[in-house]
């Protein structure tokens, strides 16, 4: 071989802060983070059920903690993430056409809009049905 050449493909390292470079990546990270809060809330409710099982004293102790300021704040944060999850999830599922209109997948905006409408209606229905209204 006449010519010896060096060649080292350069593999760049991704910084741990890659996601801060683009607002859409930030949103994505928050969406992913919502999973932590969803899981956390599932456990909190299990705890709540356990306390309710434990009788009136146990449940009152739980309620004192539940309606403390820090816990209220945490729950508000969890709610915010839950809403973020809902909205991004509707955007996501709009990409998977479950049905077709005149042979074409429905436009994403339509699917998202319909999902949001169903979401609001369903929430009101639950308030009415399970909680007997406000």
């Amino acid at each position: 071989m006449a010519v010896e050449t060096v060649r080292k493909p350069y593999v760049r390292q991704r910084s741990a802060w890659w996601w801060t470079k683009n607002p859409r990546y930030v949103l994505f990270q928050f969406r992913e983070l919502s999973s932590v809060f969803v899981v956390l809330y599932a456990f909190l409710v299990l705890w709540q059920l356990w306390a309710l099982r434990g009788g009136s004293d146990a449940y009152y102790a739980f309620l004192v903690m539940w309606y403390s300021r820090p816990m209220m704040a945490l729950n508000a944060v969890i709610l915010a993430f839950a809403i973020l999850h809902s909205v991004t999830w509707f955007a996501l599922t709009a990409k998977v056409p479950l049905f077709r209109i005149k042979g074409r997948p429905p436009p994403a905006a339509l699917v998202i809009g319909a999902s949001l409408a169903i979401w609001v209606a369903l929430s009101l229905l639950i308030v009415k049905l399970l909680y007997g209204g406000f």
Partner: protein
Amino acid sequence: MADRGTKMIKLRISRYRPERSGEPFDQEFTIPYRDDMVVLDALNYIKDHIDPTLTYRWSCRMGICGSCGANVDGTPKLTCALYLRDLKKRPVLIEPLANFAVLKDLVVDIEPFMEKLEAAKPYIIRKDERPIERGEYRQTPEELELYRQQSLCINCMLCYSACPVYGHDEKFLGPAASALALRYELDSRDQGSEERLAAVATEHGIWQCTFVGECSVVCPKHVDPAGAIQQLKALAATRLMKAMLLPLAPR
């Protein structure tokens, strides 16, 4: 050839010369600027008039051959379809496509991408081949419309450059190859669904995608690979679950 009085523009280009230095470095160039210049024109100006060693790929300069991708100001773009006038920052920062190994200057290693493309079995698979003399397979415009969007991929790899999952898992099948798999899945002439779904539903296949969605944002041909992957997932999951629930049913 800078005329007197012409506007100038400054570009910062990330360069890598493996035979000179072990690390990439940035170099700045200031060149005359016209309003109708795309980024590729600027690169060509530098190569022709300032530094012929600058290395990058291009050919069609009409957004169809897919060779001229680079990260411009941090976003993967076709340099032949990106006007300098639309860029706000100065200097304009030009780097090789992210998530790929750099060979030289703006040239990245495409081989991993080619392997993925091939792995997705992007061709018609038929159990029975109709002889050519018997003519074409009929396909209505509606049937064509079903996969048309996914057939528009120019293999420019911008989507891979934008996908953070591909950024940490170089084995991830990735957006474009998945979109191509879906393109053949949805083609009324194809009968290779089982084989192809098996090929993409692997450990580093479609399940790795966490639906960041940035691939679809950067895709210059509106292929929507993000949507394509979710559709593939739904197809593969229902297929597998059916197979498990009804082990005796024809798949």
